[in-house]
């Protein structure tokens, strides 16, 4: 192991952190990234490439990294595809390389590299064409195994993630010199500022450069500035926070890595927080990203972007190599040579593509030259140089810094499809002017490349942004800083040899692939991208897109702006799925709604079922019952024989008041309500404007101008929304007021021959049949004075009531009902028994109210009054919906009573082939009727009303069942309704 630490840098050498990479132990210091610590330990090889399994090391020192992609942690916390260049080192970190077998140094899949001619762009499309059946079973699994990234932990993520919401006047993205200058200006002016940076240390390139700011080290100026910002209550500093996307109207998505620099999050704390930032204005100060020059074998470990090479030296005190060369087409690359020499590293040569310009003393500065090839199997051992005169020279080096210029990091500015603009002065794209409303780029992100320009544009844009908000921010005195111009002569790739020159290292896209795409006429940028996969890896081509574009431009003889540019979309960097889910996982996926009888039911050992967000009692098993059917049959039989109690609170309840309440209901219901007497209830059918049934329920008239509507459990919210729409949008002058009371009342159904006897024990008023007849309703009191409501309505077909008490008394009420019912052998029943009884009675419910059915389909066609203009009336009368051979609701029973039925089975005539044109309808709801002793069902049958007595087949092709059935009336129990009125 070679120690590559040199003096300096922003690491805390007083503390040592232990970590492992591929099982081997290493040490590093606080302030290190995994990449800097490995490089300090002499480890350059960190991964294998996607397709060819080429040995790879980091080329960058930031989030643009395409190569050094590793798995962090182990077990359930294992996270694949993490960039080592931004993974903050912590004590005990376990990191593993990926996409190699059996080991990183010896990867058997590297055979792909030898077979590379077969793996060129378009390889999959051309090769795996046939036979088609081979794709899923043979080709895809092989390709997936061979070409890939890391593997997921298959265990559940043990960590928590939060979502949060932040508000500010000014969001500043990036805390380099431009962002800090903007934050200082806006912060001092009193604006609410959020300064977010993906790094764990603010300062941006000031930490990586030897620039002087205010006559001191740039990094020190950054530290002092951050310290001042920290004292401002109006400024929120967010490190480890990546702004992922610019959404509409000043909303930004950001992920804060709260705990990723610990081995395990502190108990109760989230691993990450996904912030939704509401920013009136935003400043993009995300800096710039260096781009490589493509040349043969430019992907060996030890070959890096020149800026990264000096970042490792300046910020992390790491000499990536002991003998270094620099390959550049611009002056910024020269800084790597001077910085490294100042740090005592041997710089063997600067290979400068330009002929003119200044000469760096202290090393060989070779002008007009190119690197045409490199050597070294698992790491760089040498470079081959072609001089201006054509002479070729080999140079022994173990690190090479490459600079092809810098691209403004404009990613976020194109999230609204704004097209970046080419700028010849810096040979790069700059952000579009109309990119994202309210977002302005500053500093290097805007193409202002010097430190002075960063400080100046940051401050100036902060002043502008605040002035747009009506705030006055004085322009600050700028600290003294370098203001070197950009000196660059574009040089994209080296025309030499037959070997491969990499452009997109993560997706293994080479100059050859671009040439092939051009040859096959995939010249449009969008085609180029998809054909070669250029820029489509997890790094979104941050270092490669412009280079690929430039090569294509050269091939087509066009300029780069003529060739086009690709734009970026969120997220800026990959984001954990857990962060997008937040707390909404597992039992907390959605809120749970408890019924008023929940505590009691849980005590009784009830089996619960999720109905939307509600937990409802499905059935209540009694000792000795081993199947659900035993419990449900008992609940049904006992109810029909004596009396049953059921919590029906979940049905939506809407309080409707106002002098036009009755007229309003006439508009929203297909039938009439204005004529309903006070103290009476009526069943109502609500249609959509297209004539399909929307919902049904009973509505009670509690007073002259006061109704209580009930809705189905599932439609409580949509119906309320619809009623608001009707009263605000369609009939704005109707005097109607609405409010939901679903949760205010605990409501219980009491059904069965003994229902009245049971209730009379609790109700303070007389509820004899004469005093409180079928379909009566009214305010009552129970148990000696508690205000309550009573409705004589029935879903089961029995003599039945629904009684409502204030919800806080719901628990006491279920206990009182059970106690009062003891002498009648009363039973509490759940949703299954409820379902059985409604099918026995022939009442429609969710399976029939399926969003496709009309009142006519449901046998309720006569309820649609044509004498008034109600929603859906007109279109419910369309020919297509009123045809005689349309679906009608029927009852179904198996001819052989021992046969069972399956919902969803289709009706077919005897002998008819089971094909769509012979389909006569289907079974919607199937139950076992303990009262009849066999299965029964409701179904929709073509012209069903006229087909009672007919024998058909109920065919289920999925379950491969076929049962002979008889079509009967849907009213299996008490068709005359005598029990209801008893």
């Amino acid at each position, binding site marked *: 192991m070679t120690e590559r630490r040199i003096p300096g840098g922003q690491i805390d050498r007083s503390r040592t952190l232990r970590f492992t990479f591929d099982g081997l132990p290493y040490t590093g210091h606080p302030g290190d990234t995994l990449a800097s610590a490995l490089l300090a330990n002499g480890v350059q090889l960190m991964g294998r490439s996607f397709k060819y399994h080429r040995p790879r090391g980091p080329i960058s020192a930031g989030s643009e990294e395409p190569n050094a992609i590793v798995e962090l942690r182990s077990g359930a916390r294992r996270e694949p595809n993490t960039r080592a260049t931004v993974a903050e080192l912590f004590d005990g970190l376990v990191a593993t390389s990926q996409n190699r077998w059996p080991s990183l140094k010896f990867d058997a899949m590297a055979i792909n590299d030898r077979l590379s001619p077969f793996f060129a762009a378009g390889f999959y499309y051309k090769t795996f064409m046939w036979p088609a059946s081979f794709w899923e079973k043979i080709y895809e699994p092989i390709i997936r195994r061979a070409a890939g990234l890391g593997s997921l932990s298959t265990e559940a993520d043990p960590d928590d993630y939060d979502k949060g919401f932040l508000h500010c006047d000014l969001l500043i993205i990036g805390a380099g010199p431009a962002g800090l200058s903007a934050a200082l200006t806006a912060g001092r002016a009193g604006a609410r500022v959020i300064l977010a940076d993906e790094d764990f240390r603010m300062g941006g390139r000031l930490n990586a450069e030897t620039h002087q700011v205010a006559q001191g080290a740039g990094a020190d100026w950054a530290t002092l500035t951050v310290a001042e910002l920290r004292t401002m209550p109006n400024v929120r500093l967010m490190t480890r926070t990546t702004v992922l996307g610019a959404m509409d109207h000043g*909303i930004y998505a950001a992920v804060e890595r709260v705990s990723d620099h610990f081995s395990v999050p502190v108990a109760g704390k989230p691993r990450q927080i996904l912030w939704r930032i509401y920013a009136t204005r935003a400043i993009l100060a995300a800096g710039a990203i260096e781009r490589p020059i493509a040349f043969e074998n430019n992907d060996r470990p030890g070959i890096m972007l020149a800026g990264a090479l000096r970042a490792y030296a300046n910020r992390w005190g790491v000499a990536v190599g002991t003998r270094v060369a620099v390959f550049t087409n611009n002056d910024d690359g020269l800084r790597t040579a001077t910085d490294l020499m100042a740090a005592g590293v041997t710089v063997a040569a600067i290979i400068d593509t330009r002929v003119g310009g200044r000469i760096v003393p202290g090393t060989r500065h070779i002008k007009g030259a190119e690197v045409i090839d490199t050597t070294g199997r698992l790491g760089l051992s040498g470079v081959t140089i072609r001089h201006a005169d054509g002479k070729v020279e080999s140079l022994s080096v173990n690190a090479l810094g490459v600079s092809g210029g810098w691209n403004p990091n404009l990613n976020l500015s194109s999230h609204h499809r704004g097209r970046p603009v080419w700028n010849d002065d810096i040979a790069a794209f700059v952000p579009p002017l109309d990119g994202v409303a309210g977002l302005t780029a500053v500093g290097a992100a805007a193409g202002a490349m010097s430190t002075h320009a960063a400080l100046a544009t940051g401050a100036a844009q902060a002043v502008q942004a605040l002035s747009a908000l009506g705030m006055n921010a004085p322009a600050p005195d700028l600290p003294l800083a370098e203001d070197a111009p950009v000196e660059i002569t574009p040089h994209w790739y080296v025309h030499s040899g037959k070997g491969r020159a990499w452009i997109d290292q993560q997706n293994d896209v080479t100059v050859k692939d671009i040439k092939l795409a051009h040859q096959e006429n995939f010249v449009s940028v969008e085609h180029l991208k998809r054909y070669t996969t250029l820029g489509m890896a997890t790094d979104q081509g941050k270092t490669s897109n412009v280079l690929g574009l430039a090569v294509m431009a050269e091939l087509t003889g066009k300029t780069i702006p003529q060739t086009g540019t690709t734009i970026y979309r969120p997220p800026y960097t990959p984001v954990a799925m857990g962060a997008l889910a937040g707390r909404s996982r597992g039992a907390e996926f959605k809120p749970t709604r408890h019924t008023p009888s929940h505590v009691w039911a849980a005590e009784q050992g009830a089996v619960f079922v999720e109905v939307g967000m509600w937990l409802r009692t499905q059935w209540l098993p009694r000792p000795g019952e081993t199947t659900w059917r035993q419990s449900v049959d008992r609940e049904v039989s006992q109810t029909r024989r004596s009396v049953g109690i059921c919590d029906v609170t979940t049905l939506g309840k809407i309080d409707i008041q106002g002098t036009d309440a009755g007229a309003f209901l006439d508009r929203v219901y297909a039938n009439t309500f204005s004529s309903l007497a006070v103290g009476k209830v009526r069943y109502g059918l609500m249609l959509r404007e297209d004539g399909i049934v929307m919902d049904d329920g009973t509505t009670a008239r509690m007073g002259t101008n006061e109704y209580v509507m009930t809705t189905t459990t599932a439609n409580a919210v949509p119906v309320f*929304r619809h009623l608001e729409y009707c009263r605000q949008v*369609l009939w704005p*002058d109707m005097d109607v007021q609405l409010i939901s009371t679903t949760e205010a009342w605990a409501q219980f159904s009491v059904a069965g021959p003994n229902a009245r006897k049971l209730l009379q024990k609790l109700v303070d008023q007389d509820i004899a049949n004469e005093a409180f007849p079928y379909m009566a309703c009214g305010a009552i009191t129970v148990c000696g004075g508690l205000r309550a409501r009573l409705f004589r309505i029935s879903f089961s077909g029995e003599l039945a009531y629904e009684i409502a008490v204030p919800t806080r008394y719901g628990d006491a009420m279920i206990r009182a009902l059970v106690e009062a019912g003891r002498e009648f052998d009363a039973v509490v029943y759940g949703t299954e028994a409820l379902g059985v009884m409604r099918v026995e009675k022939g009442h429609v419910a969710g399976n029939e109210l399926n969003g496709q059915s009309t009142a006519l389909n449901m046998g309720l066609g006569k309820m649609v009054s044509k004498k008034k203009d109600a929603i859906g009336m007109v279109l419910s009368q369309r020919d297509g919906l009123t045809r005689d051979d349309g679906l009608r609701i029927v009852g179904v029973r198996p001819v052989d009573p021992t046969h069972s039925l399956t919902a969803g089975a289709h009706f077919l005539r005897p002998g008819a082939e089971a094909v769509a044109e012979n389909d006569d309808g289907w079974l919607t709801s199937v139950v076992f009727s303990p009262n009849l002793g066999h299965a029964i069902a409701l179904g929709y049958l073509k012209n069903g009303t006229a087909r009672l007595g007919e024998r058909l087949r109920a065919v289920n092709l999925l379950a491969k069942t076929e049962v002979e059935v008889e079509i009967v009336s849907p009213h299996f129990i008490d068709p005359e309704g005598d029990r209801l009125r008893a």
Partner: protein
Amino acid sequence: MIINHPLLGPRDAQEFVYLGDAALINRPDGMAQGAQDAFHDYLYLRDNPAGDHRELWYHEQGDRSWLVVTRNTVTHEITAVELARDVARRMGRSK
């Protein structure tokens, strides 16, 4: 997206439910001659502009106001937000 609610100021579009074209305000008279044709057009025929679009949004997780929002379907820019009740009255709807 942010919708600048006429009563409550800027609110996140997450709080709203979208319905569709504000032309829905012009509900035909169901008792008039030719009502079926009128309803067919009302319900099924819509303009689909690339540009300004007046549409109905409901502040379900807020004050339950129905709003008419003028939104550019290309840029998402919202240029006007009004209470749907006011718009409906202005268009002659009453009771």
